[in-house]
Each structure stands twice: as C-alpha cells, then as structure tokens.
C-alpha cells in the first residue's frame, strides 16, 4: 500500500493517493479518528465538554496525525494519548 495512503488517513496531507477515491479515503480518515475519539472519551470523559467541540476535534485530529502506535491492543491508546499530551506540553510555545 502506498505510503501516501496512510499520510492521508492520518491527516498529514489532503492529497489523495493515486487511484483511490476521495469518498473512500475520507471514510477511512473518519473511522480512524472515530476509534481514537471513542477511546480517549471513554478514559477522559471530562475532556470533550471542557474543551468544546472544535478544540476537541482539533486535538483528536492532531493525536492521529502524529501517531506511530505500536501496540496490538486498542486499549493502549489511552497511554499513547497521555504520552502525546506530555510531548505536546514539552514543546516550546510559539
């Protein structure tokens, strides 16, 4: 599978990989974000109402965009999310 397939799914680019449909690629990007959203929401239920919908969507999109999740276990996404927040907070502010 071409690397740009996963770059699109992660939201790193909006350029469609050659030969794939726009609707199908949008569906895959949506489904991956949905999976991340559901796991984070289940473990940190205060986040979404605290942030509001726009900031919540941006946070999940960024979590997926930078992802390199190694675990076979979907439940480990909560630990990846905590690590993602730690990395993000350690970055110098613009």
């Amino acid at each position, binding site marked *: *599978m071409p*690397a740009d*397939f*996963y770059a699109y*799914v*992660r939201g790193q680019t909006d350029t469609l990989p*050659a*030969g*794939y*449909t726009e*609707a*199908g*690629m*949008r*569906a*895959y990007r*949506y*489904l*991956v974000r949905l*999976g*991340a959203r559901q796991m984070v929401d289940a473990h940190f239920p205060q986040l979404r109402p605290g942030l509001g919908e726009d900031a919540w969507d941006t946070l999940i999109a960024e979590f*997926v965009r930078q*992802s*390199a*999740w*190694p*675990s*076979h*276990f*979907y*439940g480990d*996404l909560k630990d990846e999310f905590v690590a993602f927040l730690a990395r993000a907070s350690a970055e110098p502010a613009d």
Partner: protein
Amino acid sequence: MAGLGYRREMADWDMSAVHADFFEVAPENWLRRDTAPLHRLIESGRPVQLHGVSLNLGGTAPIDAGFVREIGGLMDALGCVHYSDHLAASGDAHQLYDLFPIPFTRPEALRVADRIKQVQDVLGRRIGIENTTWYTNIGDMAEADFLSMVVEHADCHLLLDLNNIDVNRKNHAGADIDTFIARIDLSRVSYLHVAGHEFDARFGLYIDTHSQGVESHVAHHARRLAREHGTPILLEWDNDVPTVDVINRELSCLQISTPT
C-alpha cells in the same frame, strides 16, 4: 449451527438465555483480562473461537511472533479450534486500529500469503482469513480471485463474510454473493460471518457497522450454504447491541431445520 460474537456489553446477560451454539471473541480483548466469562460459556457446552483484529497481515510491520505465541496460548487455554484475522492491513508499520484494503494484485497476494505462513509457522496450525469490507482500493484483480490466490498460497482457511461481500457489491457494483462464492474453494471455509450495515450519506457509502439485523437475502445465502455444506454461521452485532430477544430472533433466522 448459529453462533454469536460475544461482546463486553453482554457481560451482564444471562447467557443461558442466548440461543447460540458457539461464540467468537477478539483475542486482543481477552489476552490481558480474566477469561472466566469465556470458560463459563465453554462449560455450557458451547465452544469459543478467536477472531482477531490486529495481526496486520496487509501491513509492513514484521509479524510479531511473541503476540502470535500469546494467541496460541489462549487457544490452548480455551480449547479453540479456529483463529482468524482479516485479509487487510490494520496500519502500515504501526497500528491505526481499523482495517485497510490490500491492493488486489498478484505481488500483494503473494506477499501477504507469505506473512500468513509466518503466522502459521509460529502457531503450528492453520489460521483463517476473512474477506473484508473496503471503501476504496486499487489493483487489477477481482476481489474473489485475489482472496483465492492468498488462501491457496498460504494454505489457510477462509472465514467467509457474506455481509462484507454484500457491502462491497453495494458500494462498488461488485460481485454478488453467488458470483463471489462461485470463484472460491468452499472446502476452505471454516464458517460464515453475517451482520448488518448502514448507509452513511456523508461518504455516499454503506459502512460495515455491525449495528443492524442481517438483510434477508444475506441470511438466505447463509442458510443455503449451511444446508448444502454444513457450514456454521456466526452473527456479528458489535454496535448498538440490542436485547437478548432481538439477538435470539436473529439467531433463529440463521438456523436450518434438521431433517428427521
């Protein structure tokens, strides 16, 4: 014989009231968890089979032999006959916890078959692979031919998902169930999957949600295969899980009458 995908939402159910002949679980959900509920199902005379989601057969990460050995241990502990995963990628070199299409080409079929053989070598037994729903893909082969080539080269079983064939037919004007199964070796089929799906107007696609009852023509094909080939059928209902009564009604629609 009609089975049911066992979900965590069913933990509080009286499972003796569920008219399933066998159950299926995702090993990823049980490798780190108390398996007592599964042993209770087995003690009720109904076997449990494993259907995984993260082998990443279509991906590029090396096959994780340690993980596969853990699966083998769970199979032994539960007395499972079948372990299957999807003919799909669950990521590239990493996981994305969804299922992505493998290009329908001969080189990809051979590459993935080699990965399946690696899994089987570690496990010391055949696995099954499931034909999946795909929302866009590339390649120069018909899906059924691609599937057949993988199964033959890997010498593995096939978990034939009739719902996925139907979703792909609707989304891509692909092969209907009769046309699809005419191109595969039914002797390779371990059992059937059936489920429901929904149209999502945001994408103009039917999505494999497992959140609805089984369409009548899909159930019809499943019963026919069960009658003619003795193939067990398993109902998947993973989202918006309904009541026991609704599940039992669906299961009864999948049962075939036994000649007396």
